[in-house]
């Protein structure tokens, strides 16, 4: 059976690259499984685990905090986000940069803080789930 090449990269470093029989990724609309000769696909990822089944050996797992998944028939690219992404959190950052430029002192609005906290919570929950999954699987073997 043919294999598919997978690259997982984040803006601050290279994470994994190699061959795989099958790749699973947490797409925004639900988890997707990608086998070789998959149709070209472009989708956003939500925080979760990318699982890679190499031709030999055990399944590899990588945590991503969101990002973009691009699939070509023999090529999968995961562009993982390092930064915490949420629309409102970005707004808050933009606001902060503007305020710095205007040299004004003003507290961030509370709804923005809330949105950022929510985004952090979702990511933290996904991270926790990932750690637990790894723990369970290592106990099982």
């Amino acid at each position: 059976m043919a294999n598919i090449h997978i690259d997982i990269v984040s803006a601050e470093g290279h994470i994994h690259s190699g061959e795989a029989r099958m790749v699973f990724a947490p797409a925004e609309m639900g988890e997707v499984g990608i086998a070789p000769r998959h149709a070209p696909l472009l989708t956003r990822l939500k925080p979760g685990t990318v699982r890679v089944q190499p031709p030999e050996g055990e399944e590899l797992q990588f945590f991503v905090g969101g990002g973009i998944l691009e699939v070509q028939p023999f090529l999968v690219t995961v562009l993982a986000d390092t930064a915490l992404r949420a629309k409102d959190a970005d707004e808050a950052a933009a606001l902060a940069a503007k305020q710095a430029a205007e040299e004004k002192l003003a507290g961030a609005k509370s709804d923005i803080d809330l949105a950022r906290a929510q985004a952090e919570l979702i990511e933290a929950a996904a991270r926790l789930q990932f750690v637990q999954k790894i723990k369970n699987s290592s106990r099982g073997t």
Partner: protein
Amino acid sequence: MAGAKEIRSKIKSVKNTQKITRAMEKVAMSKMRKAQDRMAAARPYAEKIRRTLGHLAQANLEYKHPFTVEREVKRVAYLVVSSDRGLCGGLNMNVFRTVLREVREWRAKNVDVEFALIGNKAVSFFKRMGGKVSAMATHLGDRPHLDQLLGVIKVLTDAYRDGSIDRVFIVSNQFINTMTQKPTVQQLLPVEPVKSEGLLEHWDYLYEPASTELLDAVLMRYVESQVYQAVIENVASEQSARMVAMKSASDNAGKIINGLQLAYNKARQAGITKELAEIVGGAAAVG
């Protein structure tokens, strides 16, 4: 001639300065190595996202994203990347000079210019210079993170989307090697088309969810990765420029010490000769 004691204290103070510059040189050297590693670590992402963008450019897109459309230029923005600290030679000044040259060219064409700043040195320079500053980020430290830059990027992309600016450039130091850093100007928006090779001609992606949203996400990340790349390259440039500047400072201090040492020896010798002459003269008078 100055007294031997004064020269001795001067030598001591120059030696202390030399110790500091030498320490700074060593620190900059190790920081530069780390900065270079980080630069290398960010490269795969930039390559991959470029590849994805190239694929996207070839797919049959039913939609043109504003980031890829050229507009008539009425107002441009410059994102100026500088260091937070000084003592790194002409590094920041070279960047500012490049910016000013560009600004003059645009003003001659009746185009407004505004700035977004990264790094303390740019902030203090443009405070003196004047000009409209729309966003800034400072105190990034030696290992800048993408989230520290998102605010500035968002301000620029939003302004570009509104149509209040028609072109965005980023000016930063390109790290060529330890001895050379070159200020460069890159166009950030609109995104210059990327060519890709070796794919079928008529095809398109399956998009999940809508293609417009995804294209937007990819382009945003592309812009972010370019800014991030420029910023970490600037950090590496800063460290290597500081290393070179501190090395020449230590060398100069060494030269000054040599000169002073010579003067000190002469003064000491002159003192001894004088004393001897006095003793001999005194003995002759007694005898």
